[in-house]
């Protein structure tokens, strides 16, 4: 019985990790139809901000991971939107390729700055005992954080003017402009929001995995698959895809090996895209956010 609860926590943990690595991408893709190949590097930057903030700037880990990292990466996102992305709106493939360029450049730049070495920080929370077993308390924190991110985004989109305008822009940008809104600004802010969420996710995962400039590559496929399988609705799509893939991946990891877990996840995704080309929310929960 204890072991069952340990397993449940681990499955929830995997789902939370998927949410944290993909939600930023989901916002950008869902709201702007931009495929951001540099998303993995935004996660990587978030991890570095958290680690350097804690180890070198002497900040509290929670401050650097939960506040500083999203802030810094969000600003980086805004800058890149201004430099590159805004010139390519409407050209989906070109955006994808340009962001892939940014992704490589960020990997190269960070390698020059910090070297191609893994850095890490000790996990800031003690372990939790469940009967004979003990699990990392930090995994439980990640589950809570993922829920908080969903709650925060829901409030942002449902309750604020920005949220209203952003949703309207997604549906018909010209109409928003005609009504006096500023779709360009909305897009820029949305991209910044996506980057900030990526920064938060990367920072939250840093104690678990450590950071190296190339770490984005190990997240990016999973993040993409989750977002594309989720479909257009940001929150419902991301949640449903994360739950599906997190469970599949974790169960296969448990029964076989981590590699089989990862492969099972990717295969599930490909089959899913074949059956539901518009993603889960293209068929179900269509009216949700």
């Amino acid at each position, binding site marked *: 019985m204890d072991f069952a609860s340990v397993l449940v926590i681990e499955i929830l*943990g995997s789902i939370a990790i998927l949410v944290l690595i993909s939600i930023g991408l989901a916002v950008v893709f869902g709201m702007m139809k931009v495929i951001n190949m540099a998303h993995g590097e935004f996660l990587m930057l978030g991890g570095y901000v958290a680690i350097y903030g804690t180890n070198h700037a002497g900040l509290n880990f929670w401050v650097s991971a939960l506040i500083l990292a999203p802030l810094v990466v969000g600003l980086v996102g805004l800058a890149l939107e201004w430099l590159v992305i805004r010139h390519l709106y409407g050209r989906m493939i070109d955006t994808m390729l340009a962001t892939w360029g940014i992704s490589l450049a960020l990997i190269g730049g960070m*390698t020059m700055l910090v070297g*191609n070495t*893994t850095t890490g920080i000790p*996990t800031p*929370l003690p372990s939790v005992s469940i009967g004979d077993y*003990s699990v*990392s308390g930090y995994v439980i924190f990640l589950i809570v954080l993922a829920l908080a991110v969903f709650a925060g985004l829901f409030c942002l989109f449902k309750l604020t003017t920005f949220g209203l305008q952003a949703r309207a822009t997604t549906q018909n940008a010209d109409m928003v402009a005609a009504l006096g809104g500023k779709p360009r600004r909305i897009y820029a802010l949305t991209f910044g929001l996506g980057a900030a969420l990526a920064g938060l996710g990367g920072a939250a995962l840093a104690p678990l995995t450590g950071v190296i400039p190339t770490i984005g590559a190990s997240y990016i496929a999973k993040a993409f698959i989750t977002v594309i399988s989720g479909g257009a609705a940001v929150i419902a799509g991301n949640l449903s895809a994360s739950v599906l893939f997190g469970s599949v991946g974790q169960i296969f*990891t448990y029964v076989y*090996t981590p590699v089989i877990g990862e492969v099972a996840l990717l295969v599930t995704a490909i089959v899913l895209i074949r059956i539901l080309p518009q993603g889960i929310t293209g068929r179900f929960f269509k009216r949700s956010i």
Partner: protein
Amino acid sequence: MTMNRRQALGAFGAATALSLVSSRAFAQEGPITVSALYDQSGGLESYGQPIVDALRFAVDEQNAKGGLLGREVKLNVYDPQSNMQLYAQFARQAALSDKPAVVFAGITSASREVVRPIMRQFNTLYFYANQYEGGVCDRNMFATGVTPGQTVEKLVDYSVRNNGGKVYIVAADYNYGQIIADWVKKYTADHGGEVLGVEFFPMDVTDFKTSISKIQAAKPDYVWSALVGGAHISFYRQWKAAGMLGKIPMSSTTFAGGNEHVILTPEESDGIMVCQNYLQELENPLNKQFVADFHAKFGADYPYITELGMGAYQGFRLWAAGVEKAGTIERQPVIEALETGISIDAPSGRVTIDPKTHHTTMDVHIARVENGGLIPVETFEQQPPADTALVCDLIANPDDNQQYVIDF
């Protein structure tokens, strides 16, 4: 501004004179090139950087003594970035365009198996200076690191005596990890123990929480780690985060090879047992002198002189001894000189080439990780490469060229 011919000649003469002054210790023949291929980035850098530092140290030391056969030794270092394709490319480049007297290359067994055939093809002497899984039998290669017969056996024995016989193995998923896991199984069976589970992880895996739960469910007496590389450091962090450090003991012959004990905090690593040929803490006068000299060159805050670094240093010293004995850098005479069973007194103790296997006989030490250092616990003197000696005899079969693996 123009320069007439006489001025030009004068300037040239001055430059030549200067270079003569700076290298007057060396004869006219030009330097001896030694090529080195070690990962200094891309995931295995925590192993590669100390090795390159130790090699530079060894070369500088040799040159300070007046070089080798009166010639300066020049070190050409390549960084294959933990990428096997670059190993293939640089190994060719080294062999064909540097025309080196010897090549020191490869950390993982994967990279060794890329480099070894290339060196054989181009008749270039090859030194592989790391601890590895043993069994390579190739007259063109000398292995100056420890093998499982020297370390794994001792550490399994120690762990069974102190913790009990039930072991759970976690290992890196490539030939080194696979073969080490087999050796641990064999020695565990020899000591009447039992292997409860074996798990292999690709080198880029960073998520170990499921395995940690599986280990908890299996309830072993101790865990054997043959994890390798920067990503796998996460295992030790997550092991601590799950509250397992100290609850279930851990033994490893790879831990500390990549400075894991320095990268991790003491709270994350204290108490892990390792078994190595060299520890920076060894209390012998040669080693104290070595550490002092090394720190004088690289700074007293140098993280740790790793076993792999020492392997390269000792490998270079052995090769240099072979060259001096042969009186030439030609490949065949040097191999024959080394096959006379050359030995040196190194910081880790006496190191002797075993002519039959081209491996080395040396001391090994079991140590406990404590506060970022390795505290020696038990010493086993002059251990022969018993595992490789079972299968490999290059004196009887000089044309042998393969890696033997254990078979149960």
